């Protein structure tokens, strides 16, 4: 059985890397005593499937992890209790908010997710400049950038991957009790960026502003992944919604208190 977990990454813990978080999860799942299935072979590893990587220093309200449980023991696992069991075994800032079953045959997280909503808290920005720039970028036909791919310089067009940009105004606190962004002195830009066929990172988006801006976290700002979305056949949904959330969330069965 494949279990899907949804968790946050907020505050100090955002400075851990994707790899660090993977190792934290391995230890937490062992401590919880969950019957995690192992890979075959010489050096068995727990069968964990992580979603899209989050850059070190960025935060998230919606990270996902799929865990394969051993079929012989999966029935004993109380999914509803999982968030409350796992959160204390993780460092502060990694909070499990929902657990559900991932249907058999479903695409992996990395393949399924098509777009992410980002909040970019930009310090010391002029809101009218931001609004004008957002409009300019959305109106542009092409936004070519140089990228390195397999050791070669290539030119990619970012424009198709920028699905929406909106300036939300002065940034408001996000989960301050967990160390999330305070919003102090920042303007919040909401960006919906595609993850396929080739994803756009928030730092790349800042690079096509005029003048180009660095990754907001490099100048004291914050970047939060607010949502990950699967868009298929005209409908959109989250990989696993929050229990009690307004959006339909077919798989969610629990939320951490």
């Amino acid at each position, binding site marked *: 059985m494949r279990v899907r977990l949804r968790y946050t990454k907020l505050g*100090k*813990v955002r*400075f*851990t*890397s994707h*790899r*660090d978080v993977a*190792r*934290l999860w*391995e*230890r*937490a*799942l*062992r*401590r919880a*005593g969950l019957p995690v299935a192992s890979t075959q072979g*010489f*050096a*068995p590893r727990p069968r964990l499937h992580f979603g899209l990587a989050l850059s*070190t*220093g960025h935060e998230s309200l919606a990270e996902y992890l799929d865990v394969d449980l051993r079929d012989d023991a999966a029935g004993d696992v109380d999914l509803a209790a999982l968030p409350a069991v796992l959160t204390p*075994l993780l*460092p*502060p*800032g990694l909070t499990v908010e929902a657990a559900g079953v991932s249907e058999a045959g479903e695409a992996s997280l990395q393949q399924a997710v098509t777009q992410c909503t980002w909040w970019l808290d930009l310090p010391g920005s002029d809101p009218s400049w931001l609004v004008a720039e957002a409009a300019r970028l959305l109106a542009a036909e092409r936004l070519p950038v140089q990228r390195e791919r397999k050791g070669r310089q290539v030119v990619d067009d970012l424009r198709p991957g920028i699905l929406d940009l909106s300036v939300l105004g002065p940034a408001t606190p996000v989960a301050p009790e967990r160390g999330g962004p305070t919003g102090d002195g920042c303007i919040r830009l909401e960006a919906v960026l595609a993850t396929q066929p080739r994803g756009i990172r928030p730092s790349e988006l800042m690079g096509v502003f005029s003048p180009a801006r660095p*990754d907001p*976290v*490099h*100048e*004291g700002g914050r970047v939060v992944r607010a949502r990950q979305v699967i868009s298929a056949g005209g409908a959109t949904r989250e990989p696993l919604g929050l229990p009690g959330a307004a959006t339909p969330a077919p798989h969610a069965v629990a939320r951490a208190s």
Partner: protein
Amino acid sequence: MDDLWPRLEPLLARVSKPARYIGLEDGMVRADLGPRTVGWLLTYPDTYEVGLPNQGLQILYEILDERPDAAAERAYAPWVDLEALMREHGLPLFSVDSHRPATAFDVLAFNLSAELVYTNVLNCIDLAGIPLRSAERAATDPLVAAGGHCTYNPEPLADFLDFVVLGDGEAVVGEITEVLAEWKASGRGPDSRPHVLRELSHIPGVYVPSMYDVVYEGADLVAVTPRYPDVPEVVEKRTIADLAAWPYPKRQLVPLTEVVHDRLNVEVFRGCTRGCRFCQAGMITRPVRERPADQVRTMVAEGVRRTGYDEVALTSLSTADYSGIEDVVRDVIAADACTQPVSVSLPSLRVDAFTVGIATELQRARRTGLTFAPEAGTWRMRRVINKLISDEDLYGAVEAAYANGWRRMKLYFLTGLPTETDEDTLGIGRLARDCVEIGRRYHRSPSVTVSVGGFVPKAFTPFQWFGQNTVGELARKIGLLRDDLRHSRGVQLKWHDPKASLVEGIASRGDRRIGAVIEEVWRRGGTFQEWSERFDVDLWLDAMAAHGLSVDWYVHRHRREDETLPWDHLSAGLHKDFLWSDWRDALDEVGLEDCRWTPCYDCGACTGYGIEHVVASTSPPAGGSQGTGQGHGRVGVVAVGLPTGLRAVGR
């Protein structure tokens, strides 16, 4: 406001590996720094990933935090990128636990595990905003302290340290805390600093460098003497008699980011009496004190449950010597069967087939590489260094390893040892080729990695009088070996930079005059000298020259029996005449047996402190006579003193 996090946070996005600085480890404690508690900032003067696993620091962290009158947090040397930003933004050295500035604590206590970190110690003191030299500090400044193996010759850092702890820290940190708590309660008056330092010098195991005068005659050091009658002439190390009374760490820190030795570590015994003459750790940590097997089992079981680690290391200087190691290993493996698989590693493997048997039992899944340390290429050379492994012992171990499915061997050697000839050096190549040959009987392409380090003599070893090989000589020997192994398939040669060995040599047996050199190297940007990309030998050679100090005098000349050594006013319990006679035996190629299983030869470590070996078995471990000298006989050495060194503890 004491919390530096809001100012640190924006800088972290701009540095490499920012997770080094965030704390949050499972097992972390946020210290309550009240007026009645003595605050210790336990500092490892290297990066977080090197320093976090340090067991000594973690043990003291817990012991101090358990005390009502003490509180401890941790700091690590910030890497150069963050250091530059901290200096630019006026941020001081901080604790990773609650991100408080170093000066919020009463003691800045360093762990000294290696000499090349000395410039980092100065950098941390300076980053903390504390005056560099002890003499310049005011009553309100934190005390700067050090412990760890390098403190057996702390003289190069003497001017920068307020006090130094020799030996096991478990008990003595409490005694120091009590003196400091009283000092704090008294209000730390403007002239109180020398008084509290003098008070500290009365605690056994505590050395206060400023309480001693150093006398030179020309270039020669002739005496280090106490300035007051109540200050001890010789500072003796501290030794805890019973490891069972100190089951620490109880809650080993689990880091969020990858560190070295990233696993559960359980110390199974402290001390070693194999008597390898090059090995400072073995000399200064005597006698052997085993942890009871039941306590080991409990610490492993609870540690695995608490941390989620799937690997546990049973640590010591030679874990296969632990009484009943087979039973303990079997129990650990059996205990995990019902829960989660745990792999067990023995970091210091003895060179024999028995050890390979245990290792094979342990690593059922990941059977990749095994490491042995024959240390020298010929039997003659190994008699000199008292590492009494015969070629047959090594071949037996290697054969057993290949036969059991291991594919890669790693062999550690030293070069630049006393009396070493080119034949000894080339013996390393011969051993490596023979091991590959043995491997071919079992695999198509066996691999042997030979790792060669330049020997650096250390204080309180029989080799403390030996003149270290020059950089040129070490490089020549490594070159010989390279040429010899050039066409040997299956053998990879790796070596330690001889220039780094030279600098290690300057610091390891230096006196107080070397302090100015360390300061100058630090002032010229020479931090993180143990990192090859940062190491710069010219900084050191220039600083030595600038201060009129001779590298040859400090490092390369053989020292005389009658000369005053910079650490003669300190003691690891070992009699100087024992070390001298062991040095003469070495030159005569005479081995010395392991005193756990043979009569005491009165090195001084047990008798001087009225303590004994704590071992659960009066006979050598199964198959474990190899390397202990048994069966090889002793020539020309007469044991002195009574055989008081052994006690059978039936557990």
